[in-house]
């Protein structure tokens, strides 16, 4: 029996070399674990067992011949359903892509596979990333690894749970306004949202193109560092990608920034206590803490939802039933086919966001809504970047609330759920990087803290997380 709990990329490679177990043993062990937990927790939307085992066999042959191992050779990983992979299905958590199989791998997937990693399955998410609980997935809710009565978070809820429940070594997720960081926080794992443009999105199903980022989730910070190093960089197929010139900039000020406005009335006092306890730990290690004010934060959630929904209304227009995915049956006319395909194929939340976005962009309203949101974004970016110039990192709770309870009797107010994104949408709007690190538990539910760094300063937040 392999103890799946404390595996890291490095420890697995050591075990391979020491013949503690084979790669086939490892892949089989993960699939046994998936079998054991998937029914209750609803993590995976499709599995690729056969090709995973075939690949594992090749790795085992390599090990027998003492050939050198690539950086991720034989390391099993999961991928969020909204990122295209040749193996398995790519359904984006939506019925409109039920059983869809991609004809190519996303750039990040290609990079990871080139280092020898083994894809084992696709993970559940809110349809097209539209949500923070996986309640908006057409494939059911992913349950919290620490409590079946609570959500895993979202939209990359399956990704976070896949790592937390030790069904794979690392997970690839996607984060538009918190979709890696919030589920990582709810599930007690590490999750990095890189700076905007740091990692190619080619092959990811776009939600809000000016915000979307691809990143990774894992049980330890060293694995995050290894994967981030592999997936980042320029890509001709995503013209927003930027070159990493400022990489390896070292932490130098020994100062941590915290933001006054984040300590608002919506913050659960138990999360607040854990957060400030953590701050005290850094003080004890010689860090000074500086408090800043960021007045533009009050606009963040409004700006985020207007921008993201405007962009999603444009991005999702491609799902029209013509070339791929679901087509409403029995349409005799083209226009009718469009109308019925979208009505039947999209989740309620997705339709709501498309309609909100279409409204915000429509003639006569674009100046009032979309443009104002972009102005708010400018203020947020300027204020946050100015703060980040003075400190090593900014720290904040990742979510003001604990994982939401799954209770069909209590209908959660949609606006309340949006407002809970406040700490994660700020770095998203500014295009900077943010890393969730687990800092403890309230009752039995995990709590996370966000380490925020400047554009291209992933290295800083990772180094900081190791302290």
């Amino acid at each position: 029996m392999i103890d799946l709990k404390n595996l890291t990329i490095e420890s697995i490679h050591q075990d391979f070399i020491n013949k503690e177990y084979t790669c086939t043993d490892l892949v089989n062990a993960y699939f046994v674990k998936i079998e054991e937990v998937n029914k209750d927790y609803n993590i995976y939307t499709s599995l690729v067992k056969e090709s995973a085992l075939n690949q594992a066999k090749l790795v085992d042959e390599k090990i027998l011949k003492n050939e050198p191992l690539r950086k991720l050779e034989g390391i099993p990983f999961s991928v969020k359903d909204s990122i295209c992979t040749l193996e398995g299905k790519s359904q984006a958590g939506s019925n409109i892509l039920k059983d869809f199989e991609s004809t190519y791998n996303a750039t990040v997937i290609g990079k990871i596979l080139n280092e020898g990693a083994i894809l084992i399955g696709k993970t559940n998410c809110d349809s097209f990333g539209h949500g923070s609980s996986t309640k908006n997935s057409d494939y059911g809710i992913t349950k919290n690894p620490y409590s079946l009565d609570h959500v895993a978070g979202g939209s990359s809820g399956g990704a976070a749970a896949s790592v937390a429940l030790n069904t794979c070594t690392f997970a690839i997720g996607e984060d538009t306004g918190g979709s890696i960081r919030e589920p990582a926080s709810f599930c007690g794992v590490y999750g990095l949202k890189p700076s905007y443009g740091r990692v190619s999105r080619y092959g990811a199903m776009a939600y809000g193109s000016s915000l979307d980022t691809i990143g990774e989730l894992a049980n330890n910070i060293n694995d995050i560092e290894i994967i981030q190093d592999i997936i980042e960089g320029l890509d001709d197929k995503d013209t927003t990608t930027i070159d990493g010139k400022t990489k390896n900039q070292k932490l130098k000020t020994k100062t941590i920034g915290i933001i006054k406005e984040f300590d608002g009335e919506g913050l659960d006092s138990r999360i607040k206590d854990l957060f400030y306890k953590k701050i005290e730990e850094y003080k004890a290690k010689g860090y000074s803490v500086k408090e800043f004010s960021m007045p533009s934060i009050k606009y963040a959630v409004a700006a985020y939802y207007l921008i993201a929904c405007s962009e999603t209304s444009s991005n999702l227009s491609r799902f029209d039933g013509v070339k791929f995915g679901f087509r409403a049956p029995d349409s005799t006319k083209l226009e009718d086919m469009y109308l019925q395909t979208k009505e039947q194929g999209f989740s309620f939340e997705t339709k709501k966001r498309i309609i909100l976005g279409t409204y915000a962009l429509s003639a006569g309203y674009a100046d009032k809504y979309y443009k104002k949101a972009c102005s708010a974004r400018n203020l947020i970016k300027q204020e946050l970047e100015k703060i980040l110039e003075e400190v090593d990192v900014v720290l904040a709770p990742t979510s003001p609330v604990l994982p939401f309870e799954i209770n069909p009797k209590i209908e959660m107010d949609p606006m309340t759920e949006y407002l809970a994104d406040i700490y994660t949408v700020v770095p998203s709007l500014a295009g900077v990087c943010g890393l969730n690190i687990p800092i403890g538990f309230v009752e039995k539910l995990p709590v996370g803290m966000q380490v925020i760094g400047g554009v291209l300063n992933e290295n800083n937040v990772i180094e900081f997380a190791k302290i």
Partner: protein
Amino acid sequence: MQIVDEDKIRHIAKLSKIALKDEDVPVLAKQIEQILEYVEQLNEIPDNIEPLDNLTGNFNRLREDVVVDFNNKEKIISNAPKSKDGFILVPKVLDN
């Protein structure tokens, strides 16, 4: 003051090419109204703040125009809900 009513929601849904179910219209009207009321606060932002819509400053990064062959054409066609002889089929576009 009400910002959107049910007629407005139906109109926007039509622009978005979504045939909403009747029972969803009042729910959407209520929820979108709630969001629009919340975002009203953005009007406080002075007009002289430039809207930011390009984060990286990248603009029209060009590449060589080289044809790259794609070797999975059959799968693209087979992904279509309906196809025949390598063509994608759709319902009638025009009447008569």
